[in-house]
């Protein structure tokens, strides 16, 4: 499984209130949520993500609340994967449950630039930067996580098992 796209870089501690403010939590419709993703940071973000992007971030991405809409909104907006130094525990689980690949990649922010085009191989957890002779090796994803991601999320994975 490979995902690719242009990189948008963010800093440390992008919290769930920034990813999707509380006023939007009364709904779970992915398209509605996508329109407001990361709105306090950049009201134009959802437009920029629409073509399919890879988010590169620092420490504790997704820190804060348990709102699953944070993962739903990012994925629906066009975020193909989040590569970060570290994640908050709850967001990490929510992302996988919703089929949004999340990889722990130490030092990624030092290597990848805003606007780079990257290809992420989820099985090998390698990130290749196009046009530059560098790559980054991230922490490998366990088999079960890969299976959930390729099904598109936990619900889809469980449905597949029942068949």
């Amino acid at each position, binding site marked *: 499984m490979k995902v690719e796209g242009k990189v948008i870089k963010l800093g440390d501690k992008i919290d769930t209130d920034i990813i999707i403010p509380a006023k939007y939590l009364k709904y779970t419709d992915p398209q509605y949520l996508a329109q407001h993703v990361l709105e*306090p940071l950049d009201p134009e973000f959802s437009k920029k993500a629409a073509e399919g992007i890879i988010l590169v971030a620092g420490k504790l991405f997704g820190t804060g609340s348990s709102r699953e809409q944070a993962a739903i909104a990012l994925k629906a907006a066009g975020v193909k994967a989040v590569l970060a130094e570290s994640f908050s525990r709850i967001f990490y689980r929510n992302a996988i449950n919703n089929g949004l690949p999340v990889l722990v990649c130490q030092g990624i922010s030092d290597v990848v630039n805003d606007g780079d085009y990257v290809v992420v191989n989820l099985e090998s957890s390698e990130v290749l930067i196009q046009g530059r002779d560098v790559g980054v090796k991230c922490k490998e994803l366990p088999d079960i996580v890969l299976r959930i991601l390729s099904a598109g999320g936990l619900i889809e994975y469980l449905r597949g098992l029942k068949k």
Partner: protein
Amino acid sequence: MTGQTLTEKILSRASGRKVAPNDIVEVSVDLVGFHDLTGFHVIEVMERIGREVIYNPKGLVIAFDHLVPPPDVRSAEIQKLVRGFVRKHGIVNFHDVGSGILHQILLENYVLPGQVVICADSHTSTAGALGAFAQGMGATDVAAVVVTGKTWVTVPKPFKVVLKGSLRKWVTGKDVALEILKEFKSDYFNGMSVEFFVENPQSFPMDYRATVANMGVEFNADAVLFIPDDETVRYVKVERGYECGKVLPDPNAEYVDEYTVELGNVDLLVAIPPNVDNVKSVREVSGLDVDLVFIGSCTNGRLSDLEIAAKIMDGKRVKSRCVVIPASRKVFIKALELGYIQTLVDAGCVVTFGTCGPCIGGHFGVAGPDEVVISTSNRNFIGRMGSPTSKTYLVGPAVAAASAITGKLSEPGDVL
């Protein structure tokens, strides 16, 4: 053989095998819960899985708090939907509008030492005050627990904190939580469970423990647990009328590291927005003009918080807007009987109960553009309490009350 920490003991019991840090294990869950704002989402997931069954109806707790009382039609609709679910499945442990914040209700009525508690809200960590392994999770994970009674967890690395001595006047659990954030910052404990040993149980009462455990999410700890002691037993006895057992770590348990907080050295502290770990002494920032003061939330809406606020505001008038929200109906009634509510209302505070209110920028006094908020809640993220240009400073109840009186960030000594 080395012994087990409290975390390892609980997860070994719940998984049926001896666990060690970094193991990924399936555990049976003793208590599962959700509130209105996450509940409708949990129910939606159950519908999508196509399995609307409840594994253990008695172990399911539902409380309405985020949208209480409903500020708009959609909020009322969400609650109606969850009420329908409650009726359909005959859920007994249901707390409708007017009961209190889920985390407080769990402490008062349900949680016991040694349990595994999973709720659809990050501040589920609060239940660690009673020595439970408590984690917040998203709607999908919680729906899976409701249906199967189980979940998976990574066994966190154990870290030991010792609370030694006694706090100075007006300094409370909030300042201890902020002291730890000041010392370790918000990412140090990611992947760890922090076990608190209180040397002198009476010196750090349950209200303070609940505040610290509540902010365990702000430490980004996987779990926070207070080792059960006489104070734990006293609290359960007072709230529920029965004596609970203690589940304890082995004396020779091994921790990755250890840290001692000398309670007597802890100052009145404040977290500067938009970071919960940018912590300073109140003295360093005092004098800042304040628009709104909020005393409440699952962090500091308990009886001792209201007692402190009432003592400081007694016979005075507030200069800034001040909203006070006791965390539950039980807390509200006790505060009413003790005269705290009268004192706070006389001082000019707006008092209601059992809702999250402005903590999540929902209603009951949200912050306008560029306004400065002094709040006893747990998060000062950008836009958390209202306008994205408002600023939230996190403090304990004494500093909040003193600031409301002077209209500036103040210490209690400035008004007494």
